[in-house]
């Protein structure tokens, strides 16, 4: 009941139709009853006037006394009409009352005035109406009372009520059936969506739902579902690409480990050789371990699992720390480090250092000997820009858009043997993303500049 939209809407529809049909029926019934009652009252008053006129005609007294059945026949006519004429002394001159009914006597009004119609109930339980006026009989004042019992009328009303109830019920049922049919028919596009959605699985994320032929009301839903499918497809492709890349990247170190160990074991060797082998294995394993760490970091950053603990960091201090850290390496490569700029940046200290360290280690590696690697800070359009610039061979133009992609190595020969995981710049990019900022590369004549933009 709770779950079915069709059932709920159908029930609501049935209720609405039943209520409106009942309201209409009630109104019509009341109008009909009112009209019947009004007509009956007019008829009753007409009868009263007839009696009055009859009494006013000559010889009425004689007629009344000698031929009361005349009144019965002409005045009453039907059995359910009751007539009573009483003179001023209280003597009953005429009483036509076949079943011997007792009815209340309304106050008699003077001739010419409109008498009040009083309702009563007969002994048989049928409703009755009674009117009473004063009239003249031979100059004498008499009181004329006319009453009537409407046994047929009640039965007719009951029949009429039943018909109305029946009509309401039928209308409601019909409406329910119609509503159910329309809903089942109208919800067909939804079932089509469900059927399509049931077919969606990892390999088939690119199939889109058809929104052309769908009703206009469902198009936003279909478009939203399609957008979701696109995002899922995107994420899925990226993830499978990720694992494929990972497996591929693991091949080289695993191959080295396997190969050099098997070669070493092929014959007896000196302890020094074994030591050499083990140390070389450790290097490969460390490379694998670093790769695993970096991949985990990237995966977590993408899942928004890395929450930066932002604090205001003095740029000068951070630059100085980095310059100190890289001092030895720069010196060995004949590269100078130069820091410029001050101010503060809102960032997670460990993540900022990691990003700067990755950029600096790249910059020093690719800087021409004798040149200077520059660390600089600037405020540009409300953003804090931290940049690392090195002089040296520029990055090839076709490499630029891919630099921040994982495992992208612009020049394979450059990174060979450096123990680089090919993930450094991806990590920089991920770190900036969790800060709500971005990382950019800007080629300059004879220089390469990497920029971290903090919002």
């Amino acid at each position, binding site marked *: 009941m709770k779950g079915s939209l069709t059932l709920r809407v159908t029930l609501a529809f049935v209720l609405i139709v039943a209520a409106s049909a009942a309201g209409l029926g009630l109104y019509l019934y009341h109008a009909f009853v009112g009209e019947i009652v009004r007509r009956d009252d007019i008829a009753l008053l007409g009868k009263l006037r007839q009696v009055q006129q009859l009494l006013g005609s000559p010889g009425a007294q004689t007629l009344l006394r000698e031929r009361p059945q005349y009144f019965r026949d002409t005045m009453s006519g039907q059995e359910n009409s009751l007539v009573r004429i009483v003179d001023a002394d209280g003597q009953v001159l005429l009483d036509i009352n076949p079943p011997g009914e007792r009815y209340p006597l309304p106050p008699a009004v003077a001739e010419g005035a409109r008498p009040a119609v009083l309702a009563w109930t007969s002994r048989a339980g049928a409703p009755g109406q009674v009117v009473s006026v004063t009239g003249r009989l031979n100059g004498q004042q008499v009181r004329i009372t006319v009453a009537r019992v409407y046994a047929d009328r009640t039965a007719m009303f009951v029949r009429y009520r039943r018909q109305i109830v029946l009509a309401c019920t039928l209308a409601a049922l019909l409406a329910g059936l119609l509503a159910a049919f329309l809903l089942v028919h109208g919800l067909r596009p939804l079932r089509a969506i469900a059927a399509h959605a049931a077919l969606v699985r990892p390999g088939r994320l690119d199939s889109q739902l058809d929104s052309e032929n769908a009703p206009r009301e469902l198009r936003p839903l279909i478009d939203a579902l399609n957008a979701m499918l696109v995002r899922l497809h995107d994420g899925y492709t990226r993830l499978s690409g990720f694992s494929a890349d990972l497996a591929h990247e693991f091949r080289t170190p695993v191959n080295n480990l396997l190969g050099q160990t098997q070669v070493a074991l092929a014959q007896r060797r000196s302890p020094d050789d074994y*030591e050499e082998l083990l140390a070389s294995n450790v290097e490969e394993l460390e490379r694998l371990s670093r790769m695993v760490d970096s991949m985990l970091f990237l995966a977590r950053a993408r899942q928004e699992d890395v929450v930066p603990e932002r604090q205001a960091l003095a740029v000068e201090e951070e630059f100085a720390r980095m310059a100190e850290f890289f001092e030895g*390496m720069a010196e060995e490569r004949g590269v100078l480090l130069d820091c410029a700029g001050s101010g503060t940046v809102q960032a997670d200290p460990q993540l900022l250092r990691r990003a700067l360290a990755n950029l600096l280690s790249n910059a020093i590696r690719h800087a021409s000997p004798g040149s200077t690697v520059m660390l600089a800070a600037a405020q540009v359009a409300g953003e804090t820009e931290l940049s690392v610039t090195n002089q040296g061979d520029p990055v090839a133009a076709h490499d630029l858009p891919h630099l921040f992609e994982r495992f992208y190595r612009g020049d394979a020969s450059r990174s060979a043997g450096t123990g680089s995981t090919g993930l450094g710049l991806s990590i920089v990019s991920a770190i900036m993303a969790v800060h709500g900022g971005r990382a950019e590369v800007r080629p300059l004549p004879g220089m390469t500049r990497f920029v971290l933009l903090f919002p």
Partner: protein
Amino acid sequence: MAAMHILIIEDEPKTGDYLLRGLRESGFTASLARNGRDGLHLAGEEEVDLVVLDVMLPRMDGWEVLAALRAHEATARLPVLFLTARDEVQDRVRGLELGADDYLVKPFAFVELVARIRTLLRRAPLREDDALCIGDMEIDVVARKVRRQGKPVLLTAQEFNLLHLLARRQGQVLSRALIASAVWDINFDSDTNVIDAAVRRLRRKLDDPFTLKLIHTRRGMGYVCEAEPQA
């Protein structure tokens, strides 16, 4: 001082074996339990100074072992270092909340484990010596001056910090990660060339002019400062 006794609770056979062997060779006595229940039993039986506990254990997992250790009066204050392969924040928080003293995420460098164990076993904070003497080298920690054979060796602030770290932990192999963290507060996997370059620079000033070398590379592990290289 008698050798410290370390209980290793680890079900993975190779990991257990190399931990046992490595810790024994690092100057500890050690025993190995292959599952949580045996480990808990041994912790109650033996004089244990520290427990190295793997989290993923069959039947009774590391968390249960840790909770049971903490629940017993005799083992309530026993230092516990847990090993986990799942580097999830919740895991680390859970371990530390349950009363573990430290943790390492697999894969870890063996020297890192030894360094952590030494730190945990040090009941009182390490007394900072004002002067250190290794071979013919004297370090005046207060004045930040270094002499070899009585002749001053001029070092930059960084080189001094690096040497001081190695000298304080004389005879212990320090991993590159530990050095980066202690000297530069760099707590992530950074370019290892940076540390190597820094050490090479220090050596050029400290060791190159002399026949007795004090700073030694342990390939695949890190660096150690000692007067007599191990035979």
